[in-house]
């Protein structure tokens, strides 16, 4: 049973008790507790169940590497699954629930999986996916879906807010342990801008727990002094509760700040993602202790030695009265000393090495603790928590020597530097044969755009462990980073001093990847490598036997290191076992790839402010508010929102569209056309420039006149279309499609800047300067006349002309152009006056039945007239000739973009599908994208197709379905009947007709 000690606990405030709940049970902890320490203090060792076998699990670590103690925190709109109890700071009212158990944490039906473990070996999924297949659907999948999985996904919208913060700094130092602090002091002394971040709430890392002296003081006193110095420096920014999540190209780094997780505050953002640009990044990220692989090493009560002393020293926790320490190195003896210091019993230290003679073992020995060298654990005893161990010879097969009763096992398999951030952007590792760890290889650092290193490790993250070496290394790292950012002058003049350090020397670690080294298969099947994903030594060995030699393949086959902890504890042990099974050296097997984030970060932090209304920018026209208030049924067009139709009460979409079309054909309609692209092209060479961009001739256009033009890309495909108006000798206004405005602007600038830089042409995007209102229909002229101020008679403003003037007192430019076949005026007015003019037109047009119409009516109107639409009739593979637009392709011009491409054999092929109209014999509406069916089947056994429908609508004017499509030899087959597939729902007969369904002579617009 774990409990709270009567005294001690340097981080907790015993005068500030906090209440929290665990699985509904009310428990108490103190300010300064983590959820894990508070649970241990309340005697709660069992904290969860494993993923696959539902084995009982207790907390094993004390920090970010924790694989077992995953909790679901909060409920409803604040629910968050899979939170590590070790990194969750306790606060008043915290609600935690354990995961992955049914019906309860103490009694779990799924734990039967554990008995079946021999039937769920590595690669179980892969093997059974292939054979026997029917078992998956009916047996394996239902069972596995029931038993696997961690916490529940939230079902309510997150009530918290999140934000980003962009930060620029010379030097980013990740990790606020003594190495990070010293590196910051060293770098800041040069005058460089330094940012130091620490993932926990406390500065100084492990040093206050592990002891020694720095500058003649205790580590805690030295840390306080260092912080004071750094806080008073103007060039230093300190941030705790901020984790370095990832390092990316160009000195970009992400840091994850947990602002209110420890003290919920609805006013403040919950998490903040720092998006940092640093010239140099120092990774002072410390090291993580490794477990040892002995049978039953996953029982609750078996913990990392460092975690045991962390809990004892930091939070005054007794992990149990009797703790057996098992180790292959000297560092674990610190745990024995810490426990003895707290008045607890250490019945034995089991040291797998042949001898333990350093100052730390001697100190333990001096306290009367028996140290058994050459000895390991044969197996742990106990069912849902450890009650003892049997010892064995490390060199043997595991025959029991003696049984030691205990309620905690503190294990240490050595330390692995945290190399994640070093590795994210390509930093390479080397294997340290003395310290038995992968460490950053300074010769192969991540490099920036200049080819020079931009990340450097400091302290324990470099692969060193002695406190004196750590502080020396950190001092040098800080100075080197400063030298690289160019503040070296001051650094060489006033090098920051390395403080005097005293700490006990440690003797060498011994490689112990299996305990005992000759363990039987039965024992190896109980040695957990990956606690969270239930991967054992036997699984990795099986994978090796089955031919998985690559560590990346083994990882995926066994799921080693694939859980939410990403193998922080299991990776090195796993690949050492793999190397052993392959008779290879560990560095030859290598590591899996380290990818950001270092530990999981919230999706909210990634999204930042981008949610709800501002998930994406929505572009509004000047008439947006009117549209919104008058039934607009919104349709996204690029980032614009345009009314698809204006719904009146009780109307369906189809009814609204029909009403709008008929009103426009018979009286007058009104369209918000403000989204159309409006590009001013101006300069002495504007005509030459446009002749090259458009397929037809634009330079011959007279001022006051408009011309429809087509624009192709250099592969000849139709890209955009629109009406060009000539303003004066040097100026044209080019209308583009709504979606094409920015693209065509960019297209023009690209040609001007990269190829035709000799042309004197400016392009100014005036799309948003003007609101554009189309007044369309037989009564359109009456409406404009009534507005007053402008002569809009057929003589003064003929078809395809434009004039400047005033309408109802507003400065306007009126284009007489038509995309509907009706008499039509498009009125451009300064955007700020758009809404006023729109309102006046509605008022004046009301007696005539003026009807605002949306994009769907616009589409129907143009389709009735056989006008093509970019994006319907074109899809990036269509050339103007396919659409019968040969009339708009100049034969006189020497060249234009697309000309040469259009003469290629495939483009000139008479078998290209060409545009025709399609009329179903039964007047029905064809489905969009339907294929025109040919004879027989192709080589793939599919029905041969000879065309496809590109636009299809119900025409309210003609009271029937109309469609346009691209059909093989279509224009030569007028009047023929073809069959059109109804997308798997049979077929329908249609007649090939002229695409102009309505007013072929164009009489309606010619008035």
């Amino acid at each position, binding site marked *: 049973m774990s409990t709270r000690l009567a005294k001690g606990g340097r981080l907790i405030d015993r005068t500030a008790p906090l209440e929290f709940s665990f699985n509904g049970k009310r428990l108490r902890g103190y300010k300064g507790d983590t959820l894990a320490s508070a649970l241990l203090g309340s005697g709660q060792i069992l904290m969860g169940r494993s993923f696959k076998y539902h084995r009982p699990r207790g907390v094993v670590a004390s920090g970010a590497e924790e694989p077992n103690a995953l909790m679901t925190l909060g409920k409803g709109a604040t629910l968050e699954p899979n939170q590590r109890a070790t990194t969750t700071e306790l606060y008043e009212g915290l609600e935690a629930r354990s995961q992955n158990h049914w019906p309860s944490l103490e009694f779990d039906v799924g734990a039967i999986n554990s008995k079946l473990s021999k039937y769920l070996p590595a690669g179980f999924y892969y093997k059974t996916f292939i054979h026997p297949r029917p078992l998956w659907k009916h047996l394996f999948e239902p069972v596995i879906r029931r038993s696997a999985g961690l916490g529940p996904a939230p079902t309510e919208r997150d009530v918290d807010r999140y934000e980003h913060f962009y930060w620029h700094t010379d030097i980013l130092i990740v990790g606020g342990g003594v190495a990070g602090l010293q590196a910051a002091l060293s770098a800041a002394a040069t005058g460089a801008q330094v940012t130091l971040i620490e993932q926990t709430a406390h500065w100084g890392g492990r040093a206050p727990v592990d002891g020694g002296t720095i500058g003649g003081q205790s580590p805690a006193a030295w840390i306080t002094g260092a912080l004071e110095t750094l806080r008073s420096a103007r060039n230093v920014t300190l941030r705790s509760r901020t984790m370095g999540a990832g390092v990316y190209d160009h000195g970009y780094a992400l840091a994850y700040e947990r602002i209110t997780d420890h003290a919920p505050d609805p006013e403040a953002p919950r998490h903040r993602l720092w998006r940092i640009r640093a010239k140099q990044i120092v990774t002072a990220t410390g090291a993580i202790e490794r477990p040892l692989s002995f049978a039953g090493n996953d029982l609750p009560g078996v913990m990392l030695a460092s975690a045991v002393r962390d809990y004892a020293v930091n939070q005054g926790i007794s992990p149990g009265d009797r703790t057996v320490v098992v180790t292959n190195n000297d560092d674990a003896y610190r745990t024995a000393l810490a426990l003895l210091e707290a008045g607890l019993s250490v019945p034995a230290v089991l040291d797998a090495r042949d001898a333990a003679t350093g100052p730390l073992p001697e100190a333990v020995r001096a306290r009367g603790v028996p140290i058994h060298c050459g000895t390991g654990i044969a197996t742990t005893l106990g069912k849902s928590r450890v009650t003892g161990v049997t010892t064995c010879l490390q060199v043997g097969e595991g025959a029991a020597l003696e049984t030691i009763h205990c309620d905690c096992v503190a294990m240490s398999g050595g330390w692995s530097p945290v190399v994640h951030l070093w590795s994210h952007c390509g930093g390479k590792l080397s294997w340290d044969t003395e310290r038995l760890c992968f460490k950053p290889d300074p010769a192969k650092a991540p490099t920036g755009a200049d080819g020079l290193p931009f990340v450097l490790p400091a302290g324990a993250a470099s692969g060193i462990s002695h406190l004196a070496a750590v502080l020396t290394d950190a001092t040098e790292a800080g100075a080197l980073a400063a030298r690289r950012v160019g503040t070296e002058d001051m650094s060489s003049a006033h090098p920051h001093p390395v403080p005097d350090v005293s700490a006990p020397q440690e003797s060498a670690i011994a490689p112990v990847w299996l305990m005992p080294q000759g363990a039987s298969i039965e024992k190896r099947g109980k040695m957990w490598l990956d606690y969270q994903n239930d991967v054992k030594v036997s699984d990795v060995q099986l994978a090796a036997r089955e031919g998985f030699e690559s560590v990346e393949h083994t990882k995926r086959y066994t799921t080693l290191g694939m859980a939410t902890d990403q193998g922080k504890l299991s990776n090195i042990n796993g690949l050492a076992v793999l190397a052993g099974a392959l008779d290879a050296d560990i560095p030859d097997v290598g590591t899996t790839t380290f990818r950001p984030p270092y530990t999981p970060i919230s999706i909210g932090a990634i999204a930042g402010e981008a949610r709800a209304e*501002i998930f994406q920018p929505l572009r509004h026209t000047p008439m947006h508010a009117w549209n919104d208030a008058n039934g607009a049924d919104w349709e996204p067009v690029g980032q614009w929102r345009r009314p698809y139709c204006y719904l009146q009460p009780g109307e369906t979409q189809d009814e609204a569209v029909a009403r709008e079309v008929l009103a426009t054909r018979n009286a007058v309609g009104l369209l918000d056309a403000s989204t159309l692209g409006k590009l001013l092209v101006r300069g002495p060479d504007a005509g030459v420039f446009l002749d090259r961009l458009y397929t037809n001739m634009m330079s011959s256009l007279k001022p006051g006149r408009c011309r429809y033009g087509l624009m192709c890309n250099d592969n000849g495909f139709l890209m955009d279309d629109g009406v060009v108006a000539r303003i004066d000798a040097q100026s044209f206004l080019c209308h583009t499609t709504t979606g094409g405005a920015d693209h065509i602007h960019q297209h023009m600038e690209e040609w001007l800047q990269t190829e035709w830089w000799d042309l004197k042409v400016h392009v*100014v995007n005036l799309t948003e300067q003007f609101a554009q209102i189309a007044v369309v229909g037989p009564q359109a002229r009456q409406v404009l006349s009534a507005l007053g101020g402008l002569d809009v008679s057929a003589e003064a403003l003929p078809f395809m002309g434009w004039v400047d003037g005033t309408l109802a007192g507003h400065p306007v430019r009126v284009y007489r152009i038509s995309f509907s076949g009706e008499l039509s005026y498009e009125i451009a007015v300064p955007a700020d006056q758009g809404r006023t003019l729109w309102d006046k037109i509605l008022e004046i047009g009301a007696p005539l039945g003026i009807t605002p119409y949306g994009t769907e009516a616009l589409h129907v109107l143009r389709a009735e007239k056989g006008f093509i639409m970019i994006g319907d009739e074109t899809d990036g593979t269509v050339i103007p000739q396919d659409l019968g637009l040969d009339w708009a392709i100049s034969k006189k011009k020497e060249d234009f973009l697309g000309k040469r491409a259009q003469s290629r054999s495939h483009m000139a092929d008479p078998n290209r599908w060409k545009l025709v109209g399609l009329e179903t014999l039964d007047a029905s509406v064809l489905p969009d994208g339907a294929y025109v069916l040919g004879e027989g089947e192709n080589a793939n056994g599919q029905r041969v197709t000879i065309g496809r429908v590109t636009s299809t609508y119900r025409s309210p004017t003609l009271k029937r379905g109309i469609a346009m499509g691209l059909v093989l030899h279509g224009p030569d087959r007028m009047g023929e009947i073809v069959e059109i597939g109804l997308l798997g729902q049979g077929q329908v007969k249609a007649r090939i007709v002229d695409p102009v369904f309505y007013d072929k002579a164009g009489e309606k617009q010619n008035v």
Partner: protein
Amino acid sequence: MSEAYEPHVAEVTGQGMLTLRADLSAPEITAAIQSATGLAVPQPRQITSDADRSLAWMSSDEAMLFCPRAEIASLLVALSDALGEAFATCVDVSDARRVYEISGPGARECIAKLTPAPMAPERFGPGEMRRTRLAQVATALWMPAPDQVRLMCFRSVAQYVEDLLAVSAKPGGALRVFAD
């Protein structure tokens, strides 16, 4: 810890804007612009100001003139006269953009939550012009005074920008990392 986070966001109304496209390195062009506007042509990433007019560098061949709306028409004429036959284009774009001013405690932090441009006082201050982005839309930033940030955006995304700034300026979001 007592410093408040109270960025104040307000739209700048009545703002006239002229786009000026011409070779800003040509002496005859810069002289003509100066004579017509009374403002020196800014160096790259700079903005020059005098009273209620400012001239901002947008690219090597584009500048943006800020002035009271009422002066637009006369300035267009003055520029046209001064530039004569030179290859230059001046257009009124006052309606195409919106301008906002962010002032008060935390103004820099409020913007730095949305733009990748450096907002630290030692990296950005009066006289500078930054074309960058605000979350997902294009923007340009400048500082008329040490405690004021102005930004412009396209008119169509004004609502988005207002919503962004409102969220960013919410109380409780202080960082206190800029030494100003």
